[in-house]
């Protein structure tokens, strides 16, 4: 780490896993830190570069099927992320990234692939033609103290949460993990996985603040958040209205 007061934000493999505006989560964490006077060093790690071990917050995004397989192959050979998570770094993984950090997923060749084992989930593939696409609303596990999450899902995964993790949230709208039990995402310690993009932090800045709180260990000063709140309430209102019709 360059300076103790500097937060290292690591975005893993934008060249492979950045299909759904995933850069947004990096930009939002960065901005919310800067607005609290926390200096940020953002490191974008391309898939032919090693993952640094000294990051405070790691982000992995979504991607198409083949890039997902390539990303998993390269991350399995790179101990950087596991080392960092083992040392207490925070990790948010979205969609294809969520599947990769689990124990196992099904790749584009319909073969089972080992994940990174950083979160106790297993992902299979739903029936062809049964893709989960659309708006999601989900009530977060109260232990995390977050307001309802709003996001957009677009995946064919069916992700089962194992005993070593807890569901991140329960959907009131949309599919989430695709298991039919209403769960969405998973978390354990400082590792969070979700199918929600949008990107998820644009509608749920509290999630960015949760990662920042974990990384800094101190309470954060509240921000104005006028536009984030406007967007959140518009999305919640619109999605709920569509659901009640």
């Amino acid at each position, binding site marked *: 780490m360059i300076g103790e007061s500097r937060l290292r934000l690591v975005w893993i493999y*934008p*060249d*492979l896993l*950045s*299909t*759904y*505006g*995933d*850069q*947004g989560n990096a*930009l*939002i964490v960065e*901005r919310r830190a800067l607005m609290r006077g926390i200096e940020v060093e953002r490191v974008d790690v*391309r*898939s*032919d570069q090693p993952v640094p071990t000294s990051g405070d917050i790691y982000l992995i995004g979504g991607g*198409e*099927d*083949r*890039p997902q*397989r*390539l990303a998993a192959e390269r991350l399995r050979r790179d101990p950087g992320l596991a080392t960092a998570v083992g040392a207490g770094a925070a990790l948010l993984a979205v969609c294809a990234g969520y599947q990769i950090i689990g124990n196992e997923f099904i790749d584009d060749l319909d073969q089972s692939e080992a994940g990174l084992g950083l979160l106790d989930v297993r992902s299979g593939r739903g029936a062809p033609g049964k893709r989960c*696409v*659309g*708006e999601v609303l989900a009530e977060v596990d109260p232990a995390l103290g977050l307001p309802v999450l709003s996001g*957009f899902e*677009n995946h064919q995964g069916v992700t089962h949460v194992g005993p070593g993790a807890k569901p991140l949230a329960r959907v009131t709208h949309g599919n989430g993990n695709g298991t039919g039990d209403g769960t969405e995402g998973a978390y354990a310690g400082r590792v969070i996985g979700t199918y929600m*993009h*949008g*990107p998820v932090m*644009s509608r749920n800045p509290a999630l960015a603040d949760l990662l920042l709180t974990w990384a800094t260990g101190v309470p954060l000063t509240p921000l104005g958040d006028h*536009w*984030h709140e*406007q*967007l959140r309430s*518009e999305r919640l209102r619109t999605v709920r209205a569509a659901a009640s019709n």
Partner: protein
Amino acid sequence: MSGNSVPGQGGAPQRTSEALPPRSKLAITASRVTAAISRRAGKGSGSVIGGKLALRLAPDLLAQLSVGLQVVLISGTNGKTTTTRLVAEAMRAAGPVVSNALGANMPAGITSALAGAGNEARYGVIEVDEKYLAGVARDSDPVAIALLNLSRDQLDRAAETRMLAEKWREGLSGRDAIVVANADDPLIVWAASSSKDVLWVAAGQTWQEDSWSCPQCGGVMQRPGDDWFCSQCDFRRPSPTWSLAGDRMVDPDGRVWPLHLQLPGRANRANAVTAAAIASLFGVPVEAALERMKHVTAVAGRYDVVDYMGRKLRLLLAKNPAGWVETFSLIDPPPTPVILSVNALDADGKDTSWIWDVDFTQLAGRPLFVLGQRRLDLAVRLEVAGLQFQVFETLAQAVAASPPGQIEVIANYTAFQQLRKTIKEAAQA
């Protein structure tokens, strides 16, 4: 590379609807009637509904209508409609052209356009939606197929970008058409790699975020300057025959031509180079092609400069990250104000995540106004980019708040259509 030449130049059979089977003639008549009814009811041009009916009555109608025409297909994520227009203009130097000029680019719209052609038509210049390219290429037996570019677009309802490249590669394999393909887009080069006869055009690629991994082996792509190659296999940029070089075009003989287009921007210069390359396959000299393309000003309302509330508004359509990036590069410099409008209706794709792929900091230093059904998504995006902006509900409010001078208006698909409607209604009031 073998000399690309068009078989049967000048010897194409005379095209006449008399040669069509009775069922096809009936289908065409029915489609024209349906289209006319749809128009009278104020539901657009009616070409799609008419074409759907015709294809139901005679499923092989597209193939039959293509007989006697020398067909050119144009597909890609961005620039299809404009390139189709430029090619059609250039090809008119060689003979009568039929074209789906208004962008109805699925089989029904294409069938409708061809059915509406007169018997004298010699060339069919056809824009094709990416998902339908392989099928339309099978049915219409084209002489040439232009592959412009592939990038992420409406991922909630369209196929994955790489999957599309793969489908093109399979669908175009074994076809006799000359493929005119962008050498600067690795996914396009991959899609064209199964074709026997390819004419490579260096048309540039500003948006590179969908082609960092090699479509052949998955290796990481290296991109020094204008070149690209895979770090792990032999997949690399082919050497182009036609090139866009800044404001100029280089033809296969090394002659350099200034491009004096009325259409703005780098992307349209690239489209013009592709169009000149296609026209040359049909014997149209470069001079004649460029002269004709010079007169194109607006294409289906895109790039149109219109009067509204006593102001000049330039209307720019941008539907996906690659399109927005190209559009930012052609607008007037600050302090020209920019109005941005984004919707997420069915035709736009319902997921607005893509706005986070667009680098809005390029709009710094000018007044920004935000509109559209998803203006709040855009507001959050601009705020996180550290930009100053104002959010309005209507175009009139945004224009009233704009400082004097021309205004650039950038909108995605349905937002663009809505703005055109608003402006048209104001002009009629």
